[in-house]
């Protein structure tokens, strides 16, 4: 099987010239859940934005289905890749239905309203994320978990091949985190490719197939499955801290903890 997304010798620096990424490479296969793991400021969010095409890559290539991402028009790109930032600040209170329906934007001809098909897809996504009872509620009145579900439904309505989510678990309680990941997993089984950036290592290891570990100096320390990527050595190098890696007594997955440093 060919990878759906390939990153080749990607380099990136912000305007001030300080290099962020140098020669980053990885590939993502369709129908998988990939987790970007790394300390604060390691560039997880920037990497997602590069993949989403929101900020242009300076050097190197991002290939979508073996075709350079730059050769797609922004509309074609939007039909294939959806992006969800960590925090959003809407100015006006749109309703849940309106927000989900907004995901249809890349497929709509300019000036036209929602077609029958748009309505069907919107309803399907609302149903999938269990939002039926909230349809007409304004976004400003939703709880944190309801907001996340609405946003995920919205990018699903975009019908992309790849979903990029920046910290989709932040601010959610444990059951909602598990529920969100469960939803994302279900999507990968339906053929979607999902990439998330997250700090919730212990929860993610139960769900993701692939891990990309970024270090605080913006390099990929390791990538692959949980056992080979999230080793004690790799984590120590990425975070500049000392980790314990063990087996979770209940899930039998990885259990990752940080040794407490003596501060005095």
């Amino acid at each position, binding site marked *: 099987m060919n990878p759906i997304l390939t990153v080749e010798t990607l380099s990136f620096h912000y305007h001030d010239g300080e290099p962020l990424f140098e020669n980053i490479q990885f590939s993502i296969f369709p129908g998988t859940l990939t987790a970007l793991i790394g300390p604060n400021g390691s560039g997880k969010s920037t990497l997602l934005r590069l993949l989403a095409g*929101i900020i242009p890559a300076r050097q190197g290539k991002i290939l979508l289905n073996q075709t350079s991402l730059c050769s797609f028009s922004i509309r074609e790109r939007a039909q294939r890749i959806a992006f969800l930032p960590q925090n959003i600040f809407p100015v006006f209170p749109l309703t849940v239905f309106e927000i989900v329906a907004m995901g249809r934007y890349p497929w*709509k001809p300019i000036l036209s309203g929602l077609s029958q098909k748009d309505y069907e897809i919107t309803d399907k996504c609302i149903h999938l994320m269990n939002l039926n009872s909230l349809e007409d509620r304004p976004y400003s009145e939703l709880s944190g978990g309801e907001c996340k579900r609405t946003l995920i439904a919205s990018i699903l309505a975009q019908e992309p091949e790849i979903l990029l989510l920046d910290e989709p678990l932040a601010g959610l309680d444990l059951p909602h985190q598990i529920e969100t990941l469960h939803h994302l997993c279900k999507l990968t089984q339906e053929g979607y490719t999902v990439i998330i950036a997250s700090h919730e290592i212990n929860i993610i290891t139960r769900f993701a197939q692939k891990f990309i570990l970024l270090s605080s100096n913006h390099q990929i320390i390791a990538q692959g499955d949980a056992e080979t990527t999230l080793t004690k050595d790799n984590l120590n190098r990425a975070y500049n801290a000392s980790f314990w890696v063990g087996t979770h007594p209940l899930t039998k997955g990885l259990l990752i903890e940080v040794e407490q440093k003596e501060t005095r």
Partner: protein
Amino acid sequence: MKQGNKTKIFFCFLLLILLTPLSIFIGYEPISPWRLWQEIQQSRPVNQSLVIEIILFHRMPRTLVTILVGMGLSIGGVTFQALLRNPLATPYTLGTSSFASLGAYIAYLGMNSFLSSLPIISIPLSHLLAFTFAIGEVFIILMLIKTKPKLSATLLLLCGITLGMLANAFISILRYWASPDKLVFMERWWFGSTQVLGYQPVILVASISIPAFILIWSYSSALDQYTFDVEIAQSRGINIAKLQIHLFIIVSILTAVIVAETGPIGFVGLIVPHVARYFVGSSHRWVFPFSALIGGAFLLFCDILSRKLFRTEIPVGIITTLIGVPIFLYILFGKNFKEWMI
């Protein structure tokens, strides 16, 4: 939801249609429909009947201009609020109107002197200068946003208000220098008045504002995305820079034409969009047409009031401010406003 919005728009349209005959018959010289009917039956040439002349060359063009200007101010307000992601941003609060006024003021004062000798085909110099100054001010605002991307809503507004004060200071200098005979006309314009004569202003305002309305309306869904989240909007295929520049230019032209024709009229563009959102929700597909209808009806209502409220007619800009201030304070201290200021 959707069906309800169509009904609301229909009622608003009805309101506008009902106000129109009032605007035609009410004024300094009250004309009853009966008197008009008698005049028409006498079938004298138009220029020999005072009643018909008043209606045809004063009241009708004035009504049309008022409706168009009310619509334009509201649509300009909605667009600025969306573009700057700030519910208090309008061409009026951000100083764009003041700069357009300055441009127009210079042109009007210069008339019959050196400036009128400039041959500018079919576009009045006042409109051209108003646009130049308006776009210049918008450019300054854009530069401010560019250099300080995290500029808070409140700070941006203060910048706009300060720039507006600067323009007003220049206008004060010009007023001080102006000859008394010109000042009479200028003062009326400066307070904001839709009193026009003949159809030339109507054609001018209509030929600019109607295409502008349609163009701006075509950006509805893009503006929904943009006000929801800029990065999501980008990831959905919206070119943010292009969207901003297109809309800023269109609104600057719209504001310039309105200001050059009627003077700066405040509070319509600030309040009408909020009223519209209260009734039809936040989707721009509905907010634009509804704001246009409410704006047209509101300004027409204020204009009718301005003719009859006091013994002599007063400029409509004073009425909109008198009505606008309490409504605006109500919105400002209302329960929905807290989230916007954070």
